[in-house]
């Protein structure tokens, strides 16, 4: 298939259409709008043969696709920020009910103050929900991850919902050359969707019952184990996809770029800038560890790639208020049992769309040299103009 230049949101819509999706529920929120608009147009033009539900709120968007999936139809929705926060209650219920949903998150900051620009606070706030979370660097990866997400979610040993996270504006509104895998190939890869416990009058099931403490604890334990165990399938699906479609993203969990003794750990589109700076020798002795799969967290893999580094610099677009960045805390946890521990520091960058540009990355790497392990800083952008 040839590569075409198109907007990130259009690419998402086109790959969703090729996944043989039967029900789409949509509610607009910036910067997700271009995705659902494109799908609406494809539906209106009969390019995609599916039901399109214009719901009255995000809460109903996720509720409708949950119902549709439980009734045996592969479904789709996309949202971000306030919309994802509004969905929160159903986000947890979907994982607990083991409904294999796929949702694209056009990552955007959370209120207040209200802000439409990119950071990762919205999806990171859902990290404890039981969803698998994939964070993408570029549009091509979003396209490939959407296909993989359905394959992972619907796997009989997984049956968990998946969020494909793409940076709002940076990826939703960017024009990039991208290859959209053909419907024929995608459908062959995914197979026909067949939810094993679907709502069917011929074989009635009760879904979403009340569980008393002992059953609740047992079922939540099963859910926790399912999320941990999904790692194997995330890797397998990534590898199978690579074989069939010719594109891979590290080992499916992490992408290692360069071999410098100072490792930047980061997620999403800012990794492109970091890679560029490594290529241009703008950063001395720096490598990049890009976390693609944040849930399940690739603890062993991250420990293996970081244990021999001298410095670990976690740059991330979220903060667990009252402590530090969520990625930093988990990376630190992964390294705890190592005898030789690298120095580890945390920089919260890009909140509410503050540009994570080359001066920012340079500032972070230089500052990391000067501070002690455990240092945490929120970079609001004003430091950069003062220093560079």
């Amino acid at each position, binding site marked *: 298939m040839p590569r075409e230049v198109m907007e990130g949101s259009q690419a998402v819509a086109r790959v969703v259409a090729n996944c043989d999706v039967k029900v789409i529920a949509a509610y607009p929120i910036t910067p997700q709008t271009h995705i659902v608009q494109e799908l609406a147009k494809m539906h209106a033009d009969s390019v995609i043969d599916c039901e399109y*539900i214009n719901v009255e709120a995000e809460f109903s968007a996720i509720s409708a696709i949950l119902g549709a999936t439980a009734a045996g139809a592969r479904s789709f929705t996309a949202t971000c920020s306030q919309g994802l926060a509004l969905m929160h209650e159903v986000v947890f219920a979907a994982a607990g009910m083991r409904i294999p949903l796929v949702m694209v998150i056009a990552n955007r900051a959370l209120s207040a103050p209200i802000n439409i620009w990119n950071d990762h606070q919205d999806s990171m706030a859902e990290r404890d929900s039981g969803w698998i979370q994939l964070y993408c660097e570029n549009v091509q990866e979003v396209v490939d991850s959407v296909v993989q997400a359905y394959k992972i979610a619907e796997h009989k040993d997984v049956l968990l919902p998946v969020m494909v996270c793409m940076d709002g504006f940076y990826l939703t509104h960017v024009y990039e050359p991208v290859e959209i895998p053909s419907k024929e190939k995608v459908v062959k890869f995914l197979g026909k969707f067949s939810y094993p416990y679907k709502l069917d009058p011929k074989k009635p099931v009760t*879904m979403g019952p009340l569980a008393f403490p002992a059953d609740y604890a047992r*079922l939540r334990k099963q859910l926790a184990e399912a999320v941990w165990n999904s790692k194997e399938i995330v890797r397998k699906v990534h590898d199978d996809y690579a074989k069939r479609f010719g594109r891979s993203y590290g080992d499916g969990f992490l992408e290692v770029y360069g071999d410098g003794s100072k490792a930047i750990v980061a997620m999403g589109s800012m990794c492109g800038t970091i890679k560029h700076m490594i290529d241009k020798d703008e950063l001395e002795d720096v490598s990049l560890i890009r976390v693609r799969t944040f849930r399940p967290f690739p603890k062993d893999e991250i420990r293996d790639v970081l244990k021999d580094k001298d410095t670990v610099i976690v740059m991330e677009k979220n903060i667990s208020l009252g402590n530090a960045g969520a990625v930093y805390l988990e990376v630190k946890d992964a390294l705890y049992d190592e005898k030789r521990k690298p120095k580890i520091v945390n920089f919260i960058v890009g909140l509410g769309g503050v540009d994570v540009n080359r001066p920012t990355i340079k500032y972070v790497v230089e500052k990391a040299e000067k501070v002690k392990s455990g240092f945490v800083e929120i970079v609001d952008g004003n430091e950069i103009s003062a220093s560079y």
Partner: protein
Amino acid sequence: MGIGLKQFAPGHRTCAGCGSAIVFRHVLEALGNDVIICQATGCMEVTTTPYPETSFKVPWIHVVFENAASVASGVKRALKAQGNNHTRVVAMGGDGGMIDIGFGAVSGALERGEDIIIIVYDTEAYSNTGLQRSGGTPFGASTTTSPAGKKIPGKQEWKKNIAMLAVMHGAKYVATANPAFWADLQAKVKKAYKLEGGPRLIHIYAPCPVGWHVEPSKTIKVARLAVETGLWMLYEVEEGKLKINYKPKEFKPVEDYFKLQGRFKHLLSRKDIMEKIESHIKEWWETMEKVEEEGVNLLKMI
């Protein structure tokens, strides 16, 4: 075989005399087995599905409190996309789940013209959590969050009218029902079953003996009195035309209804409030009868 037992098994944990359980048996029997029920959180979800048991012999899904109508929308569209045009999809919830917290979802489904049946069984309060005030609670009723106090005599607002709200959304069929008039209730559910291609909503009175402080053996007696006093009107609106299904020859005094229920006891000595309620009923009936007589097409109001 008893009413609705092919769809709704006994052994569930509802209270003695539960009006909602009686409503469920009639609704589910009238619907038959080619249905999928989408249930809101509430008494009728926690009492019927204590894992690993279930009362439901038809496919049933519960997700959260406020999304039954949205889940039902998704289920129906999924069936349609798979070529199943026969299975009926039903959103069921109480007054809390459908009139209050889930009203947005109900409104959305009505506005979109979803091909679903919406059943609102109305216990006139949050029964599941200990009878707190809801939008469905009637004027003057004492609930745990609108208690009859020394100064404030119970709820000071009138009941939210979900049936007329559904009419104003342009719903295909809207009806009210009451378990004391069970043949009428089942006929309305069957009519909703038959009418396809748009939303049908049935608002059903469902006494909560524990919450209302009513003797469990008096559930149906109270339900009947609600109709005989004129407080609960049985009507339907089809293609915009109102039809009142039952007109008591003479309204029984509201006092007869109130004195059987602890939630209204404090009003019996308040002649001013009793008169206010009775005149409210009178004006409501006069208006509704006028609409019926004149054949007003309510859909032309929107």
